[in-house]
Structure formats: structure tokens, C-alpha cells
């Protein structure tokens, strides 16, 4: 689904944000990009969205080389991706329903389709009763749910999440991860940049650790920190339930039952 071949990104001024990154993400995978602040996680997300251009290397998304994609085709690439950010990026002048519908309006979906898809996705994120509220009338967790609903309303192949729990308390983060997991189990590839130890450790999914723009670890089933003995187990196939988790190992009380339905 996503392949990065020796991707290097050097910003003006010489800052190296990605250095020869090679990565292969299969359809339906859930991948955590972990690393300290400034390690280059967000740059990778921006490169995947073509908000930045690579300095060297190639990025393939759904079989297309997006580094050679002409500018006018970039919007079509982005329609195949949903994006969730730490700061939600909601429009304060629009209601929950309007925020979610906006993603479909701007790509020209018919009104009838918009109505039905928005209702469905609001139900998925548990906000079916809050459609008429404005973002400032919602909690942080609810705002992030709206953001996820907007990202997923177009049924994208890939969902990119850049620190989606960064502004949320641990309990709320669980709810967000639960939704992302549910989306992943519907077959959507999820790539999530985070430095939330608890979430990564609890989910036990593929972990790609980045430091100073380089991939320093890629574990099929990993935790935030490097394991003493590398994991060799295969990742869960799309649609499969989550892997068993040791109960309450992270201090947040995130057990499998809570995290996954």
C-alpha cells in the first residue's frame, strides 16, 4: 500500500528530516511511527500527503509514485487518504455535521450521499447525537472524534494520524485508539505518528522507530521502546481482533477488553 525507497528530505537551511528511509507498509496494516520530537515522524506524514516533496528517493502509494505526481493530481491522492492531527483542524464556524460533510462537499459528492455517509460515520465515532454542536461546545476527545469522522467519511484507503492523542488525557486517548482500531479492522491502512508510550505499548502493533530522520527500528509487533528480544510474530491480518495484551501494564489500565471491542 505504501512504500518508501531511500527517501531523504532536506529542508532549506540544511536540516535533514529524513535520511534514506525505506519502508514497506502493506494494505490493512496498523503502523506506529515513534520517536522523540523532531525525529522526522511528522515529516514522513507530510511527505506521504505530498505537503512536502522528497529531496531524494521515491514514495509509492497504492501503486503510484507520488514523488512524480503532477501538482494537479495531488488532490486526488489526498482523497484516498484521511488525515487526523493533534490540533483537530476543525472549522469553528461549522457544526459537527457540517465539518464532516465539508470533506465530501469540496470533492463534489451529491447531497444525498453526503447525508447518508455523514450519518454513518458520526454513528461510528459515537457522535450521532452531537451533530448540531459547534467545536467549541465539545470536549477535546469529542473534537478528535469529529476529526476522525471527517478523515474517514470518504472511506479512504489510508488513514494518516499525526499525534492524534497528543492533546488528550489518557482515558480519552483510549476512546480515540478504539475508533482508529475499528477503522483499521475495516481494512483501512492506519499510519500513526506518536510519542505516546502507553498507547503504543498497549496496542502491540507494528512499530517503526525514527531518530534523526533515520529508521532505527522496525518491529512487526513492538512497543515504544526496543524489546530485549526482537518480536518475530506476524502482524495481525486486516479484520482480525487485536493481539492479547498484558493487563494494565502501562499504568493507564488499558486492557484488551477496553482497547478493542
Amino acid at each position, binding site marked *: 500500500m505504501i512504500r518508501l525507497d531511500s527517501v531523504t528530505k532536506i529542508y532549506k537551511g540544511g536540516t535533514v528530516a529524513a535520511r534514506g528511509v525505506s519502508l514497506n507498509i502493506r494494505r490493512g496494516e496498523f503502523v506506529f511511527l515513534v520517536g522523540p520530537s523532531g525525529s522526522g515522524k511528522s515529516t514522513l506524514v507530510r511527505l506521504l500527503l505530498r505537503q512536502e516533496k522528497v529531496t531524494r528517493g521515491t514514495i509509492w502509494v497504492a501503486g503510484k509514485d507520488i514523488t512524480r505526481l503532477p501538482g494537479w493530481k495531488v488532490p486526488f491522492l489526498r482523497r484516498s487518504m484521511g488525515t487526523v492531527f493533534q490540533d483537530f483542524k476543525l472549522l*469553528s464556524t461549522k457544526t459537527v455535521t457540517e465539518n464532516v460533510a465539508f470533506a465530501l*462537499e*469540496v470533492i463534489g459528492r451529491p447531497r444525498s450521499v453526503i447525508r447518508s455517509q455523514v450519518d454513518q460515520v458520526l454513528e461510528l465515532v459515537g457522535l450521532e447525537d452531537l451533530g448540531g454542536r459547534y467545536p467549541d461546545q465539545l470536549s477535546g476527545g469529542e473534537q478528535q472524534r469529529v476529526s476522525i469522522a471527517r478523515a474517514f467519511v470518504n472511506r479512504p484507503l489510508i488513514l494518516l494520524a499525526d499525534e492524534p492523542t497528543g492533546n488528550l488525557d489518557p482515558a480519552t486517548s483510549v476512546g480515540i485508539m478504539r475508533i482508529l482500531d475499528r477503522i483499521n479492522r475495516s481494512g483501512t491502512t492506519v499510519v500513526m505518528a506518536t510519542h505516546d508510550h502507553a498507547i503504543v505499548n498497549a496496542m502491540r502493533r507494528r512499530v517503526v522507530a525514527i531518530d534523526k530522520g533515520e529508521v532505527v527500528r522496525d518491529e512487526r509487533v513492538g512497543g515504544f521502546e526496543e524489546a530485549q528480544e526482537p518480536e518475530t510474530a506476524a502482524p495481525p491480518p486486516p479484520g482480525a481482533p487485536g493481539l492479547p495484551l498484558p493487563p494494565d501494564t502501562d499504568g493507564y489500565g488499558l486492557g484488551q477488553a477496553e482497547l478493542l471491542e
Partner: protein
Amino acid sequence: MGRLIFLVGESLTNLRRNALVATGAILAVFISLTLAFGALVVNELLRLNTIGWQQGTHIIAFLKDPDQGGLDSGGQLAYRDEVAGWDEVSAVHYVDKAGAYEEFKEIFASRPELIEVTDPLKLPASIRIELQTIDLYRDVQFRLSANPVVWEVRSFGEQIDQLSTISRVLNVLGWGLALVLGISAIILISNTISLAIYARRNEVSVMKLVGASNWFIRVPFLLEGLIEGVVGASLAVLTVWVASRNLHSLGDTIQLITLSIPGRFFLRWGVVLVLFGATVGVAGSLLGLSRHLREVDS
């Protein structure tokens, strides 16, 4: 249809949010096009007022009597025929002494004491000359003056020249001001669009994220500039039209000149000006978009 409604709605939202700046841009278009259109109307008025002269008698040559070294009536008629044969001349009309006296009485009908003391024999015969084009009046005037049988030559060319000069000056001034103000209107509209983009940077950023095409993002801003240009231009056309109507009613009291502009002139130039306003608006929008839209990214 749904997309169109959405785009128009977005444009109106832009205008509402930047009402003050948008008003400034509309006023700039309005003032510049009012000046330009005003210059056009004045020019048209001058043309209409001089057209009567241009199509009528251009030169009058008063002829000497035989006792002053001039020709007798037969000779005067022969001279008329000679002048009628000149290339520059379109038509010649001979007025003898009796005809001149009749004309005199007609002109001074309100002053009988003047008519009473005027000797009909003192009024000279004349030939009235209509030229092919008024520009040729100097040559013909010179040739007539050189003939000793001609007593005096009078031409309306000088007056027409003066009016043409005034018309030219007004045109240059009007269009010059319109050009300067038109450029400032483009800059103002460009700034309005920049502000609109800045005010809506979050929306633009979200639109880009969810895959809105570049043109879909641009269209509301282009529409905003278009609306500003068209509204400004329409106000200019309306203002000049209303002013012209008032001038027309004033013209009823001034018998000598025409202050009435035909409706088709307003229709033709009104459409041209509104299209020009629309172009100015779109040009301003494109300038603003090229300067600022690239900077707005998530």
C-alpha cells in the same frame, strides 16, 4: 448545481467577513470607472454637438460688390461653380444680396429697429461651402482668401478645433485617472482576496487536506473579486447614467447645445464597462491568489 451553490455561498461568506475591505475595493472600481465613463460621455456630448456643424456649412466666403472690385452676380455664380469643382468641397450654396437680407431679418426678428436701419444693399452676397471633411478647412480658407473678389472668409473650423482639443484633454485626463485608479482597484481587490485567504486559512488548509482541487479552492476567491468588480462597475454605469439624465433635463433650458445621450450608447458602453470591471476583479483575485494561496498549507 450543488457545487455551484456551495461555491457561491463560500464567496458570499468571504464578502461578509471582509465587508469593509470589500467595500473599499468596490469603491475603487466605482470611482475609476465613473471617471472613465464620465470622460466617454463628455466626449460623446462634444461629438453630438459638433456633428451638426460638421455636417452643415463649414466656411462662408463673403464676396465684394462690383464697385469694390468684385464680381457681378453672373461672375459670382461662375465663381461658385469654380469652388464647387474643388476636390475638398462637397457642396456650395450661393446667397445673393436679397437672400442675405432675408436671412438678416430672420436672425434679428426680435430687433426690428436694427432691421429698419440696415440697408439691404450693404449686405454682401456670399457662398456657403460644405467640405468633404472639416479637417480640410485651412486649405480652402487660404485659397478663398487669396482671391481678390472675396471680401472676408469665416470658418467654423477653429471652434471645432477648440472643442476637439477640449475633448482630447478630457479624454486623456479621464482615461489617465481611470488607469491609475484601475490599477489601484486591482491592488485593492488583490489585498481583499489576500485578507479573505488569511481569514479563511483554516478552511483552505482543510480543503487541501481532504482533496479539494486547486480550482475548487480558487473559485470562491475569484468569484469574490468578480462580484466586487461587477458591483463597482455597475454602480459607475448607473451613476453616470443618472447624472446624464439630470443633465438632459437641464438641457431643456439651454437651447444651443444638446445634452441628450442616446440610450444605445449607455447600453453598449455599460456592457463594456461591466465586463471591464469583471476583468479587473478577476485580475485582482488572481494576483492575490498567486501571492498568498501557496503560503496557506497545513
